């Protein structure tokens, strides 16, 4: 019964989405107030019904209803409760439902938090989101119904893919999808603005917080995914340039560019058509990512569900949504205008350079991801593009981008002076270069790339310090330095924090790439191996029985200079229902290094092949990503968003209720 309710709720949600996608949009262009007014209630009701459908699927998983095909193939009665819940989105159908739920959630959020915006604008935004929702709900109902029943009912399920049986998998997909789908808001705002012909600073200010929130979720989602790959896959890597990872990374790169571009549009009215294009691209890449993952055109270690028939549907949908919006862009963009002029040396041009570098980086990731497909389509054979390509392309693109990060915040808008910038930043530069040249010797071995990476990281920090000092100096008033520091805006601190996150991230990547040590050895019980000054002693394995698996559990005693510091227990698990064998790594994390042990294969007579890694600063990679996301969060709390929202609300209240005397209205507006 419950699954049927879920399916029924999905159908109702589709009908609501259809209404939401059409009537308010037409109403906004023809001036039908009642049609415009439909946008908010249909959007919110759609959310309620998608949530009901999602709840029904989750319920089927939690209660082990194996008469539902999706539950039977992705769950098992022995599976612990939190993984049964996570299994709801562990399958193709379930992850689509999660996608739809996230989209409905964003729709509801826009309808709640945009009360201060003009009604036609909100109506158009919600309609565009409705169009996307129609596509996904239809896709689900036509090709990937999560509620399909199975007869005869199996006694037990086939279990969730063991790779996904991990706490990280419980939170990673919702985070990632929140980010992915969140760009639909910026997209919808851009399309609504193109339709309405109103692209100005206000438009940028409206879409900026939404973009930032989506970007924060995406940042956290990607970081979690990378962390999951690090400890779950047992290879010790944190990024594989896998098509699915790339699919989430491309929107992130474009989203990062969009955040910066929106700043220029909001503050200087510039980059308008470029910003619109970025907003369209960020979400288009999210859709493309979904297509790549769900259609099976590319093989990947992540592709848990692939079906070319579904691909045709998504491709048609892509053509409609992306193609449609690019046609609209081509048609309307020239009316948008170019915005304020700026000199070659100015904050605008630094931001533009950064934007271009980020866009080119995203483009090259796209090319690398699709290259095998293109070559195959041209009949030139099969090949795969691996990390060497991406590393080769990425470092030369990101190094100048990161260098510009140090200069941009110090440059003036419109026109800056290069000699002036050089004077202000010379000490920061000298300190970064000298310490970057010297530091690698501290770690034992000088490497050019390590020096480069450290220089960029230190450069971000030193230039930020220069920037902060200057800011404090120009803040007037008889105040202590601390008070002056407190007077700087939240969005300024948010930016600096996010940039600091990049520095921390760069340190992590640089150090782990330059100095990680790896030992892949065959160990008898009692054998020892050394890595990074640590001694690892293998004490043999014991058999352990888990809820839905059996495991060989090794004990490895780690000691340094003869004193024991840690006992690590990596496992090799055999999941009973599917017969899958999984490696469960043991990691001893520290601020400056991780020790990482994973079991390979049993060799003979109690001996195992064991992989031992010493990974310096690896935690900084994810720490940096978290700082970036945190920076976004701090910037969101900036007072000006709240102030502007209040102003607009009051301005609209004034328009709606003309009986308020004009003088009062004016004083209310001027209050802040």
């Amino acid at each position, binding site marked *: 019964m419950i699954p049927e309710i879920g399916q029924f709720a999905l159908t109702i949600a589709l009908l609501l989405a259809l209404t939401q996608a059409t009537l308010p949009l037409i109403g906004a262009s023809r001036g039908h107030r009642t049609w415009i007014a439909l946008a908010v209630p249909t959007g919110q009701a759609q959310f309620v019904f998608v949530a009901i459908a999602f709840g029904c699927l989750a319920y089927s998983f939690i209660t082990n209803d194996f008469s539902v095909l999706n539950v039977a193939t992705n769950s098992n009665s022995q599976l612990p409760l939190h993984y049964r819940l996570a299994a709801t989105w562990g399958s193709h159908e379930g992850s689509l439902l999660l996608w739809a739920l996230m989209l409905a959630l964003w729709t509801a959020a826009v309808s709640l938090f945009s009360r201060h915006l003009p009604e036609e604008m909100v109506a158009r935004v919600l309609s565009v989101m409705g169009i996307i929702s129609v596509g996904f709900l239809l896709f689900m109902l036509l090709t990937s119904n999560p509620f399909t029943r199975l007869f005869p009912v199996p006694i037990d399920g086939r279990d969730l893919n063991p790779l996904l049986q991990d706490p990280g998998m419980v939170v990673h997909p919702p985070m990632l999808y929140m980010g992915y789908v969140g760009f639909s808001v910026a997209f919808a705002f851009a399309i609504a603005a193109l339709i309405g012909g109103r692209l100005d600073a206000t438009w940028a200010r409206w879409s900026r917080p939404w973009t930032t929130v989506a970007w924060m979720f995406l940042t956290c989602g990607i970081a979690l995914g990378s962390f999951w790959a690090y400890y779950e896959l047992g290879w010790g890597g944190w990024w594989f340039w896998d098509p699915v990872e790339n699919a989430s990374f491309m929107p992130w790169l474009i989203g990062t560019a969009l955040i910066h571009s929106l700043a220029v549009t909001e503050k200087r009215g510039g980059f308008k058509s470029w910003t619109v294009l970025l907003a369209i691209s960020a979400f288009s890449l999210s859709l493309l990512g979904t*297509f790549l993952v769900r259609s099976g055109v590319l093989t990947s270690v992540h592709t848990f569900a692939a079906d070319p028939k579904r691909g045709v549907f998504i491709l048609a949908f*892509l053509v409609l949504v992306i193609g449609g919006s690019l046609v609209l862009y081509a048609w309307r963009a020239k009316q948008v205008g170019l915005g304020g002029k700026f000199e070659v040396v100015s904050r605008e041009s630094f931001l533009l350079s950064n934007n271009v570098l980020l866009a080119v980086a995203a483009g090259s990731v796209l090319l690398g991801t699709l290259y095998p497909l293109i070559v195959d389509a041209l009949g030139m054979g099969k090949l795969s593009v691996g990390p060497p390509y991406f590393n080769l392309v990425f470092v030369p693109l990101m190094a100048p981008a990161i260098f510009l990060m140090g200069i941009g915040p110090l440059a003036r808008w419109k026109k800056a002076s290069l000699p002036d910038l050089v004077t202000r930043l010379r000490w920061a530069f000298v300190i970064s270069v000298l310490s970057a040249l010297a530091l690698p010797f501290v770690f034992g071995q000088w490497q050019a790339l390590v020096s480069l990476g450290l220089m960029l990281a230190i450069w971000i920090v030193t230039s930020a310090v220069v920037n902060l000092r200057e800011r404090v100096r120009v803040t007037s008033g008889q105040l202590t330095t601390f008070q002056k520091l407190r007077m700087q805006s939240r969005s300024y601190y948010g930016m600096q924090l996010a940039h600091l996150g990049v520095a921390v991230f760069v340190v992590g990547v640089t150090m782990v790439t330059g100095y990680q040590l790896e030992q892949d050895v065959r160990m008898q019980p009692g054998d020892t191996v050394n890595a990074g000054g640590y001694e690892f002693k293998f004490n043999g394995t014991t058999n352990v029985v888990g809820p839905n698996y059996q495991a060989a559990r090794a004990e490895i005693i780690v000691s340094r200079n003869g004193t024991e510091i840690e006992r690590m227990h990596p496992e090799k698990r055999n999941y009973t229902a599917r017969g899958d064998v999984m490696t469960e790594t043991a990691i001893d994390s520290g601020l400056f290094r991780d020790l990482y042990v994973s079991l390979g294969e049993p060799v003979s007579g109690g001996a195992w092949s064991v992989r031992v890694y010493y990974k310096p600063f690896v935690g900084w990679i994810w720490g940096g990503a978290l700082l970036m996301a945190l920076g976004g969060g701090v910037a969101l709390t900036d007072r000006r968003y709240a102030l502007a929202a209040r102003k607009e609300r009051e301005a609209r209240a004034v328009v709606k209720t003309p009986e308020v005397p004009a003088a009062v209205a004016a004083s209310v507006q001027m209050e802040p």
Partner: protein
Amino acid sequence: MLRYLVPLGLFLVLVVFLAIGLGRDPHVIPSALINKAAPTFRLPQLKDPAKTFSAEDMRGKVWILNVWASWCVACRDEHPWLFEYARSGAVPIYGLNYKDQREDALAWLGELGDPYVLSAVDLDGRVAIDYGVYGAPESYVIDQNGTIRLKHVGPLTPDIWSQKVLPLVQDLNRQGVTK
């Protein structure tokens, strides 16, 4: 203005490639060994290690070499179908037990049944390297002259069996008769 059409143009090019890509199976990997002589080998048999099996023994017959292992999950999916193919009598199926422990392999066949005429034991995977094995399961159709005529990576699903393998095998057998 033309430059505003550039993104649309790029996107349409991308769509063309994606559309072509949809019609192709990324799992199909061309083998350099198609229409070449099957690499020779002589390996001990799984059920009777005293006896050996060689590709040479199969001269004059069309046969299928199926690479499997007890640790291979997809092999478990493929297994019931292999029974049906073997029962149809269209072509004998020989197993190549790939990088497996003897006890595990025997236990696996004991549990699920044995569709193979016999299985050869490729303990260290040397023969699999010669055959360019990409992963288990994998199947090769080898003709009367010892030439590889088809390689399939992944489970031999009923679709692939009826559309690719069976027509080829019947064709080869007919040619053999007329020769």
